[in-house]
Each structure stands twice: as C-alpha cells, then as structure tokens.
C-alpha cells in the first residue's frame, strides 16, 4: 500500500484550526470548572443537609457516568428541558464543565479537609489574625495539595475534549474524522491527528510529573 502524506500537508491549516478549538475548549472549561468545583466543594461542606445531599448527588453522578453519554444527554435533553437551542460548542462547554467541576470539587474538598484544625489553632495561639492564618498557613498548603491533582485533571480534560466530536464540535478529532471521510487517506489523516495530540499532550504529561515532584507534600 502506498501512502500519500501530501493530504496532511494540504490540510494542515484545517487540522491546526481543530487543534486550536481543542485548546480553547480545554482552557474555557477549566476556567469555568475551577469556580464550579469550589462552589460544589463549598456546598458539600454546607450546614444545610439538603444542600449537602444535592451537591453530593451531582458530584457522584457526574463522576460515575461516561462523559460521552453526558455530552449526548446535554445535547438532546437540555434543549427540551430548558426550551432553548444551544450551539454544539455551548453544549460541549456545559457538559465538560459539569463533569470537570465534579472532579475538581473532590480535589478542593480533599485539599480543604486535609489541613488539620490544629494548624488554625496553632496560628491563632501565636497571635496571628484569622486572615493571616488563612493566607500565610492554610492557603499555601492547600495550593500545594490541590495543584498536582488539578494538573492531572487538566491533562485528562485536554484528552477528553476529543469526545465533543460526537456532537459535531469542530475540534481536532472531528476535523480529522471528517477529512478521513472526504479524502479516504485514512491512515495518513488519523496518524496526523494522533501525532498532533501527542505533540500537544506529551509536554503536558511531563509538566504534570514535574508539578507532582515539585509540590509533593511531605508530612
């Protein structure tokens, strides 16, 4: 079998445009899912039992069902429910944000609850004010604990954005799958897609390893 790589070069701008959508979707989702995760984590620590239960149900539900199904669900069910027609991009953003917020909330919750009350007490006993204790003692440690997990979630999110191709968002995988169907240069196009994901994802995976080493919590 002969390979014709010119199809990849000819369509490189299209593929790169898809890659840009992938990156944009990752950044936008994370930007929304960090406040979303904080909100969910705060709700799960709320004194009102109903609020706690609702937030817990949300988190467990999104963590225990496939993202691809969540995207379908958002695509077909949400418009009927809310009686609005969302664009595919917005649908993808909503679906991914709900999913990643659920994962982030667990990260934040672990970060908050892992700091013992004794640290607050010790800081206050030394004569620090509450804001001082929070900013000088609690927050730096919480960031150290949360950042590695957030970084891992970031990479999974980057990879998971590929699933939005099933609802026709023109990300890298969607563009590649369409090119495959149009050009019939299946091996070349799909290999280029995999290579582009690899080129973007490999440094991220390495960066995550570095963050894990750099922010390792030693007690």
């Amino acid at each position, binding site marked *: 079998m002969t390979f014709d790589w010119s199809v990849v070069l000819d369509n490189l701008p299209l593929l790169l445009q898809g890659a840009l959508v992938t990156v944009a979707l990752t950044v936008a989702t994370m930007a929304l899912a960090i406040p979303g995760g904080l909100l969910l984590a705060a709700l799960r620590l709320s004194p009102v039992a109903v609020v706690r239960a609702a937030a817990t149900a949300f988190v467990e539900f999104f963590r225990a069902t496939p993202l691809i*199904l969540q995207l379908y669900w958002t695509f077909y069910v949400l418009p009927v429910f809310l009686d609005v027609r969302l664009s595919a991009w917005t649908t993808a953003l909503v679906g991914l944000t709900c999913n990643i917020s659920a994962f982030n909330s667990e990260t934040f919750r672990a970060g908050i609850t892992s700091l013992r009350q004794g640290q607050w007490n010790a800081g206050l006993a030394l004569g620090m004010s509450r804001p001082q204790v929070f900013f000088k003692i609690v927050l730096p440690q919480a960031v150290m604990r949360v950042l590695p997990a957030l970084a891992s979630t970031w990479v999974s999110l980057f990879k998971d954005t590929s699933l939005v191709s099933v609802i026709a968002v023109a990300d890298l*995988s969607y563009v590649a799958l369409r090119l495959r169907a149009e050009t019939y240069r299946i091996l070349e196009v799909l290999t280029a897609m995999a290579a582009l*994901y690899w080129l973007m994802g490999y440094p991220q995976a390495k960066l995550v390893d570095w963050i894990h080493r750099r922010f390792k919590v030693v007690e």
Partner: protein
Amino acid sequence: MAFDFSPILGAWPFLAKALWITLLVSLLSTAFGLLLGVLVAMGRTYGPGLLDAVLGFYVDSMRAIPVLVVLIWGYFAFPLLVGRSVDAVTAAVIALGLHLAAYAAETIRAGLTSVRPGQMRAALAIGMSRPQAIRTVVLPQALIRMLPALGSLLVIAIKDSAIASVVAVPELMRQSQILAGKTYRPFEIYTAAMLVYFCLCYPVARGVDAVYRRLAPLGSS
C-alpha cells in the same frame, strides 16, 4: 412534556444484550490493562535502564493521547498498516486496554517502590530468587496497597467502554443511540442509560473501598 418509557421496556432484551457487551468490554480491557500494567511496571522497576526508557515513553504517550484517538487509530488506520481487518470488539478491548495499562503501570510502579527495600533483601537472604521474591513478597503487597487506585481503573474502564460506541461496538451507549434514533425518545433512553451506568460504576467504586478496608492490613508493613 410527556414521558414515555415504553420504548425501553419494549426493547429490554436488546438493551440487556448491550449491557452484557458493555460488561464484557470493560472487564476484558481491565484484565488486559492490568496484566500489561503489571508487566510494564515490573519492567520499569526491575529491568535495565533502556527498557525503563522505552516503557516510560509508552506510558507517557498513552497519557498524552486521548483514548478515542487510540481507538480510532487502532480500528481504522492500523488494519491498513498490517493489511488485515480487526473486529470492533477486539479493537476496543485492545485500545482501551493499552490506554488503561499506562495508568495501571504507573499505579503499580508506585506500589512496588513503596515496599521497603529491606523486604527484598530479607527475601533474598532467606534464599529466594529475585523473581520469586518479587512474585511472592513485593508484588502482592504492592497490589493490595494500590487496590483503591486499581478499583477506580475498573470504573474508568466501564466509563471508557462507552467510547467504543464510536466504532460501532454494540454496547449500551451505541444501542441506546440506535434506540433513540428509532423511537425519537432520546430523553427517556439516554436518561435510562445514564442511570444504568451509574448503577454499574457507583457500587464498584464503593465496593472496592469496602474490600480494601478488609485487605489493607495485608499490605501494611
């Protein structure tokens, strides 16, 4: 709007078969991923430096490429390269397994290195061979210690098996799509599918935690 769940009841043997395929794909890919993960972890921990580098490259590449891409490449592009077709279920099990193995390997490697080196020395001192010491002393403890993480891999495998719908594996996600298209009842069908996945994944996650609480002392040293 009015809900009508009769399409689901009417098609339940169809969906039950789909659920069975989902279970089959997730269990087989987990088994394959764990087996490969143990081998990769042992190769990286006990093998020569070059092997560590090669396997490390494999692991990091799998952490960089989406499972959808691995699956699509394996199903559509790989057969062109080798000149023979692969059936969808096999492709899905292998692709999901290869992807999962990278995560399993990292987890198991962390477990292996968490067992203190003194145990290896003690095992060698009482006359065990190195492979014997790894197999009977270090690996069992590593696996027990890493049980919660390995359990979450099973949950991930169940969730990822839904991605196999993209290459038309007749599993729950795919068959739900077909049914939703036929009956024009996407709301009921996707909601039901969602609940079924939840009922699969949530008990597994909790069950593994429960088993771990029983077994944890066996892994402590």
